[in-house]
């Protein structure tokens, strides 16, 4: 990818270090040290990305933002600040900056590699919008590539818009794939049907396209959730598959600023699904396929936390947002544990391992500190998701009165979903068993438990 870049920053040393890095990566890179020169360059040249420091003079950063929004709205703007306090000093919020046209806000100092990733994410995510549709379909083409380069999705969860935005493959055997749909081709369902007959359960795409896939399917999901003709079952399955791919990306490549935004969109979609589906309670009682996918547990925690939230009389839309995201990310600290430990249950661990395991809530909360767009409340949910009402949880042995109220929702649903998936029970049947388990009950706040139960009632 060769993009052209403009770096606007008052600090020549900083600019030089970034330029050296990006020139090596064969980006076309220009520099400006004040707003006036920057605007002139933007007027004369075509840039895809601008890195704009908030503290430039002689045409302030706000003037430059306004200029770009008016004259070159396609440019991606990454705003940088000299330190974390600066934003508060100036008295502007990240939200307001984004409204002015900034796509990301980065706090200095950061490594140029981090900036590069941010640029790539932003650019990749937007690029599918520019893909021109191509009506001549190409022939299927065999590709030799390693299994590890691909991510798969179930055929039954496959939706596509009129134009495909990434290449699709089917797998013939070990390291052997056939590209059946090319990026930019118009989608023809009969072509896929041909392969379905071959008894194939999965469609594949390159893992490097996963972010594009997530962004695209997130948009698609929004539309599908609003469709009356699609069944609830299909909607839930598709939502779960988008969430699954999202978490796969987070847990394999780490969280990045653009993924935080995608996560917020995923949560919004989940909330809309739960909010708008009048038959959801009926469906939830009997649906038995909740445990099939890799990140199914995290999806379920978030899903049932939203449902619980809806039935807590104090929960606002702000609470739902933080509980949904907290539910998805609550175990992110496990990324810092040795890989051999990630799938072990505490009962299988020795004392040293257990001690390490009990540090994952704090590790997770600390990881999230790197992302200014994640609210403090979400970090607290991650930090407290193993505290129990009886004070016997970890890491701080907080009792019910001390636990952050939204965290209580995630704590309960973390245990509840583990319980039903372990026992392979449908949600309602599982709940009936769960409420009778005297060893578990003291862990939970009764009001929260009642809200979960009420989630199975008909909407009034």
């Amino acid at each position, binding site marked *: 990818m060769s993009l052209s870049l403009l770096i606007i920053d008052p600090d020549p040393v900083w600019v030089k270090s970034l330029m050296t890095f990006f020139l090596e990566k064969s980006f076309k890179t220009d520099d400006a040290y004040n707003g006036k020169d920057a605007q002139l360059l933007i007027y004369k040249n075509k840039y895809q990305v601008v890195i704009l420091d908030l503290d430039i003079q002689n045409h302030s950063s706000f003037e430059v933002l306004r200029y770009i929004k008016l004259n070159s709205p396609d440019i991606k703007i990454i705003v940088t600040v000299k*330190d974390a306090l600066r934003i508060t000093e100036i008295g502007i919020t990240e939200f307001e900056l984004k409204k002015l046209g900034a796509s990301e806000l980065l706090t200095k100092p950061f490594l140029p590699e981090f900036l590069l990733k941010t640029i790539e994410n932003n650019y990749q995510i937007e690029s599918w919008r520019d893909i021109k549709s191509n009506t001549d379909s190409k022939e299927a083409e065999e590709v030799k590539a390693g299994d590890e380069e691909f991510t798969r999705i179930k055929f039954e969860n496959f939706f596509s818009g009129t134009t495909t935005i990434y290449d699709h493959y089917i797998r013939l055997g070990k390291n052997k794939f056939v590209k059946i749909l090319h990026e930019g081709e118009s989608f023809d369902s009969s072509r896929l049907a041909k392969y379905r007959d071959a008894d194939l359960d999965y469609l594949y795409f390159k893992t490097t396209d996963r972010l594009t896939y997530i962004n695209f399917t997130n948009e698609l999901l929004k539309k599908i959730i609003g469709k009356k003709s699609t069944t609830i079952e299909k909607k839930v399955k598709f939502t779960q598959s988008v969430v699954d791919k999202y978490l796969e990306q987070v847990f394999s490549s780490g969280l990045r600023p653009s993924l935080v935004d995608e996560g917020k969109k995923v949560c919004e979609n989940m909330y809309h699904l739960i909010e708008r589906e009048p038959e959801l309670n009926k469906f939830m009682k009997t649906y038995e396929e909740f445990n099939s996918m890799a990140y199914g547990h995290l999806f379920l925690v978030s899903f049932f936390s939203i449902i619980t939230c809806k039935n807590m009389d*104090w929960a606002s839309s702000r609470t739902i947002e933080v509980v949904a995201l907290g539910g998805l990310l609550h175990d992110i600290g496990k990324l810092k544990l040795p890989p051999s430990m990630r799938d072990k249950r505490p009962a299988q661990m020795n004392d040293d391992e257990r001690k390490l395991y009990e540090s994952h809530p704090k590790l997770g909360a600390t990881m999230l500190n790197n992302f200014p767009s994640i609210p*403090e409340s979400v970090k*607290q949910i991650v930090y407290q998701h193993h505290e129990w009402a009886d004070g016997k949880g970890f890491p*701080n042995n907080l009792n019910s009165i*001390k636990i952050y109220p939204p965290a209580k929702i995630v704590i309960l649903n973390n245990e509840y979903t583990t319980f039903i998936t372990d026992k392979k029970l449908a949600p309602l049947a599982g709940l009936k068993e769960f409420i009778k388990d*005297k060893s578990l009950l*003291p862990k939970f706040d*009764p009001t929260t438990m009642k809200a979960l139960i009420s989630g199975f009632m008909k909407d009034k």
Partner: protein
Amino acid sequence: MPKGNLLIVDDEPLLLKRLKMNLQEYADIVFTAPDGIEALEILKKEKIHCVICDVNMPRMNGVEVIKRIRSEKNDVPFIFYTGHGNQEMMLEVAKYGAFDFFNKPNFDGLEEVIARGLKEGFHRPDMSKDNDTLISEYQKLLNGIENE
């Protein structure tokens, strides 16, 4: 119906004034303190049902304030806020039981949380039910669902 008394603690006089103005209607009396030391004095003298507190203050920070208050067996709900860069302190205050958290300058939803905090401070929930009572309460709710 009484709404309860609120204490606001912040070393920035302007923000203190603004918060007091905006939150007045949600409480019976709004007390303000420019730092942690004065906050502790007010908490000793007055009946306070909810505290909203900046975490990073000179003289005595938010961590120290809640730590001392809790050591006196006072579990009044605390709402903390922070500017960017004090996240470690937020994990510290959580150890003493915080009711909610905000990121300065985004106070969206603060009024609602204050109202809820004051209510909690007024009537602390009763946590004393035993397992069997709870199970029968849950069961009753579940039966209602079955009979829908």
